[in-house]
């Protein structure tokens, strides 16, 4: 209380008067209380000094997030490819019974090309989604 400059309550004051050790320390504590400290510097200096470190950390965090997202996206890929191959083969077999072979191949090829394109677009979205998730997480942690 003495150090923070607050007034002593009755109990503390009577203890201070009665206790020889505390009264001996009183002068020292009052002296310490007079220790004024100037205002701290603005955080701008710290932020400027830390900017290269933060940029490095941000890059590393970005790569880590991307790596995790790509790894998670690659897990179901074999199954997706297996199902797609099965579907294409089944469709080709079915169409061959109804249409000429060249026409069946043309239809199935178009279907396979569309599937490949969709798959490529989906995987191309992974880094964009990962970056967006990272940004959202940062905003949440600041909120």
């Amino acid at each position, binding site marked *: 209380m003495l150090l923070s400059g607050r007034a002593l309550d009755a109990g503390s004051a009577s203890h201070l008067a009665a206790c020889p050790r505390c009264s001996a320390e009183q002068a*020292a504590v009052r002296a*310490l209380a*007079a220790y004024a400290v100037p205002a701290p510097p603005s955080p701008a200096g710290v932020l400027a000094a830390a900017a290269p470190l*933060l940029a490095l950390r941000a890059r590393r965090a970005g790569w880590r997030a991307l790596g995790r997202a790509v790894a998670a996206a690659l897990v179901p890929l074999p199954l997706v490819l297996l199902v797609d191959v099965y579907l294409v083969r089944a469709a080709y077999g079915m169409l061959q019974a109804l249409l000429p072979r060249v026409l069946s191949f043309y239809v199935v090829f178009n279907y396979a090309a569309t599937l490949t394109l969709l798959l490529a677009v989906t995987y191309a979205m992974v880094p964009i989604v990962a970056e967006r998730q990272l940004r959202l997480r940062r905003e949440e942690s600041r909120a």
Partner: protein
Amino acid sequence: MATDEELIGAVADGDGRALEQLCRRYERGLHQFIFRHTGGRDVDDLYQETWLRVVRAAGRFDRRRRFSTWLFQIAVNLCRDWHRRPPPEPVDPAGIEDATRDGTARGDAALDARRLLAALPEAQRSVVILRYYHDLDEDAVAEILGCPRGTVKSRLHHAMARLAELARP
């Protein structure tokens, strides 16, 4: 409002605004601690270096711990290193005693608190600053300084005895 531990997690991901929030929360306490510990010398350098160490080690911060304890541990270590350097002007505790006994001091309020603290050994000074200026309990002080609670009590006792002796008119 985000907790300190969440903010330091964001700092580990390179978030400058999270660092700014942490700086604003602790700027006063940390600056005062360093100022009192070093007697006002090299404060800005040590203050900045503390935050740089926080950023560098943010990825290794254990989120089960309190950020404030960790921050002050870094500051204490930096101040210890600083005290190991050769001082530009050595403090002579005898000078303080002479000054107070000669009656040159102008009473309690005018006693030079800076020189009183400087007269204490580094370990005792840390305890006094954390316990009395920062109002931390003995357990928290012990955790920051990495020593048992009994050591904190003993250092505090010796420090106060020394200060009382120095401040005696």
